[in-house]
């Protein structure tokens, strides 16, 4: 009986220690973060099972559009080269498509706009918890990828952007993101060049940004310059598939 009481007392103390900040230390233990990040795979598989590859994100009406769309992330890349492009109305901006493709592309904004477009009024969900509704027009990414003829080993699409995330004085670290082919070729995944009927303003990612409507905001790279098809992203930057992923956010951002 006394042994059991001792055990219970110890168990109780253990639970209390866990509650009183022990969890913060646990958050730095490798085995804990290892288990926690395994859950991301479980979540992705379960969500894919339910949503499949084609279930569409809800679309809204013009009346639902936010009067002022909240901009987040980089609001202006403000590099000499970007500023020159902006001054020129992005006439010389090019998006290159390369990597695991048979036909590398280099598209101007005019060429991108000449391709079939899709317009959608969708809800932007930030990882912080807020939502904002806007109308986006752009080229379905699936069309761009198809034009580049991906090779069989292409599994991910990596977007590299013009916004430098590094602190002044440190080596440049451009924002990047990645999607797998399921999300990249989803009908609502577009390279958007227009918000609410206007050319995309700088604070929202001019001249072109990604919209991946079944994912959280940080997946939707702005100021896109390069699109690369790759078999894996382990060798790129921090190896986690995106700027925020390298800071600890999950690669799968469907939740």
């Amino acid at each position: 009986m006394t042994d059991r009481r001792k055990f219970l007392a110890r168990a109780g103390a253990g639970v209390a220690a866990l509650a009183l900040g022990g969890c913060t230390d646990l958050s730095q233990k490798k085995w804990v973060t290892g288990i926690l990040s395994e859950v991301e795979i479980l979540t992705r598989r379960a969500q894919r099972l339910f949503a499949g590859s084609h279930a569409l994100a809800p679309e809204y009406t013009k009346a639902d559009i936010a009067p002022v769309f909240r901009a987040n992330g980089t609001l202006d890349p403000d590099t000499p080269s970007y500023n020159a492009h902006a001054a020129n109305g992005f006439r010389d901006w090019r998006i290159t498509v390369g990597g695991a493709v048979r036909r590398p592309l280099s598209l101007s904004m005019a060429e991108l706009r000449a391709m079939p477009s899709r317009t959608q009024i969708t809800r932007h969900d930030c990882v912080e918890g807020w939502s904002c509704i806007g109308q986006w027009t752009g080229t379905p990414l699936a069309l761009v990828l198809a034009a580049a003829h991906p090779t069989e080993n292409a599994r991910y699409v990596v977007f590299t952007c013009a916004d430098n995330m590094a602190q002044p004085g440190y080596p440049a670290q451009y924002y990047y993101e990645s999607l797998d082919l399921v999300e990249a070729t989803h009908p609502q995944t577009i390279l958007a060049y227009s918000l609410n009927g206007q050319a995309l303003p700088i604070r929202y990612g001019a001249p072109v940004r990604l919209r991946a409507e079944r994912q959280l905001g940080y997946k939707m790279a702005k100021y896109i310059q390069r699109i690369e098809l790759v078999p894996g992203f382990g060798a790129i930057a921090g190896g986690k598939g995106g700027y925020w992923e390298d800071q600890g956010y999950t690669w799968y951002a469907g939740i």
Partner: protein
Amino acid sequence: MKALLRRALGLTPEGPHVLFRRHALVVRLSHWLNALCLLVLFMSGLQIFNAHPALYWGISSDFAHPILSMTAEDTDAGLKGTTQIGPWHFDTTGWLGASDVEGYPTARGFPDWITLPGPQWLAMGRQWHFAFAWLFVINGIAFWTWAIRRGHAGKDLLPTRQDIARLPHEIGEHLRLRFPKGEAARRYNSLQKLAYFFVIFILGPLVVLTGLTMSPTMDSAFPALLWIFGGRQSARTIHFICAFSFFGFFIVHIVMVVLSGTWNNLRSMITGKYAIEVREHD
């Protein structure tokens, strides 16, 4: 006084009594697993909330009109925390909106001693939250399945018409801190049934479904979720209310466990054995 203390401690009665198996093993296991899940989910949920400490109603965020917000502003007297609920504003410095982190006044929704992790760390808060959400759902479904198939749900938890009729009487008895004794203590009273039934079969599914409604991929798979809860931001607000309903339940639950016999209750949820007094002449 001594009697009250003795009852609160819940020591095994000195007089004639029997020990009976009050809680099945499944109930005990799922109870403690659930307690751990709720602890982690609540604390990591507050960490996630702190990333944008405001709630809205509807399909998207009307930033100018949150229904609840926690903000901080610099004043001559230091960092001032304000909590706004609808038209009301409260000074909640030190608790909500602004509180000390390692001795420094910091702008944050909930204070660091109740969030998981303590410092602002959204990415890690989300990982804890989703991992334990899986555990919470698996545990919940396992308990549901067992409780419904074994008759525990219908027999012991579902309030009957008599339970509802007895409610005013039971509330009176509870307010006088008089709890069922002897044979009557073998089953849950009306208030217990109502509370447990509500938490297990209403609050549980509601917190999970509103949580899933916040996922953009789940909204693609099940757009009906948005329709049911009136949009993603409404779902987020309901999720928050559910979390604090669980918290409220937890507080009342602990108070009742203590008042109605701490050790007896605790033992019955660990070993299953609960002591009731028996009286030969009654």
